[in-house]
């Protein structure tokens, strides 16, 4: 497998990482997602990592890059489904994933995303 599929659901790009990624695959995903945000005019990216048995500093950096790049392209990123053992290990490794919005599962992730997008769509002067 040399590419991770990206699904488009309305204005959300959905990615579910189901394989133990080698670094090149992670970099390809980063590039593909960035391109796809622009071509599909997606407003949000949801990345499901519930199948990942570990996230090391390289993958952590990739998730951070995706979040930053999508923000610059006016899209929000939510990472969902991180396993507890992975979270414990990441923090001990020294990575707390600053700037990355997270949720426990896909449902919760979509809810977070809708909320963020709704807030953003409010008029700047508010009600």
């Amino acid at each position, binding site marked *: 497998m040399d590419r991770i599929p990206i699904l488009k659901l309305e204005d959300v790009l959905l990615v579910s990482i189901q394989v*133990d990624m080698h670094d090149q695959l992670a970099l390809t995903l980063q590039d593909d997602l960035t391109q796809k945000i622009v071509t599909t005019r997606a407003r949000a990216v949801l990345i499901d990592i519930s199948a990942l048995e570990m996230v090391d500093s390289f993958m952590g950096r990739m998730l951070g890059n995706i979040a930053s790049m999508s923000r610059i392209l006016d899209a929000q990123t939510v990472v969902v489904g991180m396993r507890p053992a992975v979270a414990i290990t990441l923090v001990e490794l020294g990575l707390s994933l600053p700037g990355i919005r997270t949720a426990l599962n896909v449902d919760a992730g979509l809810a977070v995303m809708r909320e963020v997008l709704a807030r953003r769509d409010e008029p700047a002067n508010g009600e």
Partner: protein
Amino acid sequence: MASDLETFPVRNGEDVVRARQIVRSRAMEVGFSLVEQTKIVTAASELARNTVIYGGGGEMHVERVYGGPKRNGLRLTFEDKGPGIADIGMAMQDGYSTSGGLGLGLPGTRRLMDDFEITSDYGKGTTITVRRWRR
């Protein structure tokens, strides 16, 4: 100290993935908890990647170790014949990287494991040995 030493090549990205899978299965055999397995596999992934990126490839040695009648663990050694590390003190600091990375690989790995040993001859290569005991 009975042991069964296994050696695997670590030359490219695919080998890094394979190293993770091998270490996962050995850590399970030793009886580590899921969280401990995840820490050991993550440490192995960091060190295997370093072996490829900085060392130009090398080998991983995996060994089950026994420290007493009820004490066992896993020892991993990553060896390369690359350029070596010019300043080990700097390389062990959080946030220091010569490759534009996060600089968490070595210091983070030391936090994930019980023992961490590094020897590097500038110009001749680097050997890193880590060990974790079962709680």
